């Protein structure tokens, strides 16, 4: 069944950004390596290193510790942060212990960028991106 994205909850490094954001995206993938050699009839692929990224947009605010500035601005380059996203909640309420409607996604991130700016008369927007920090073997 299709989901209307309207009750997501978004946390980044101890700040809930839910009330400041109107767009969120998670990308989780793996490199698809080509190991094709002579004599094969098709391309043969092999799963490589995994990667993860989260992006979001919202309306810029400044002042309180939970505002986009300083929460996002001060965090650029910090690679000891955690991001947790609950795409679907029950009317904005996280359901403790739920493995279905309340489950979310979390990963360790390096905050890669934050940007803001717009035209006169607009609500000042911001956007940010964080990359999965990865694991050293």
């Amino acid at each position, binding site marked *: 069944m299709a989901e209307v994205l309207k009750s997501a909850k978004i*946390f*980044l*490094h*101890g*700040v*809930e950004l839910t009330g400041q954001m109107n767009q969120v995206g*998670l990308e*989780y993938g793996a490199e698809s390596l080509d190991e094709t050699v002579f004599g094969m009839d098709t391309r043969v692929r092999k799963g490589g290193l*995994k990667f*993860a990224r989260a992006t979001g947009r919202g309306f810029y605010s400044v002042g309180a*510790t*939970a505002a986009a500035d300083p929460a996002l601005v001060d965090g650029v380059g910090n690679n*000891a*942060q*955690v991001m*947790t996203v*609950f795409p679907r909640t029950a009317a904005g*309420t*996280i*359901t*403790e*212990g*739920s*493995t279905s409607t*309340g*489950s*979310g*996604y*979390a*990963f*360790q991130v390096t905050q890669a960028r934050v940007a803001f700016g717009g035209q006169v008369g607009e609500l000042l927007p911001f956007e940010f991106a964080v990359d*999965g920090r*990865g*694991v050293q073997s």
Partner: protein
Amino acid sequence: MIVRVVPMKDASVTGTTCSCQGPGVTNPGYAEAGTVKDLGPTASTGRVMAALHVLSCTAGGVKVFVQANSSSGFTSLNTGTDIVAFTSRTCRDSQWAERVFNCASATSTQRRYWRAAWTQTCVQENKFLVSIAVEP
């Protein structure tokens, strides 16, 4: 790596303000614990990953634990086993923990019941969110 997590304690909106007498009252010092959740059997060596967001806390700080047990009946504060013990915090922060545990060992047989527990100075309000992922 992104993991699918289960929220174990959401005190992000209404913080915890336990009414106990302070950390250390109950050995080994848990002030309060969340509801025990059955996250399914883990029959062999598995991993648990835990994500903590401390949104705000007070001078006394808050220290959050993730505990597991083979029985759902570990309702007393000191009967769970600490799988994860986050670092105590007195300000906004996030922490990530990854642990390998062996369910075949004598002390961790067939763990499937999990909860969050925490210590804090009583009456003071601490806002945090802890979620975990258990991979069998």
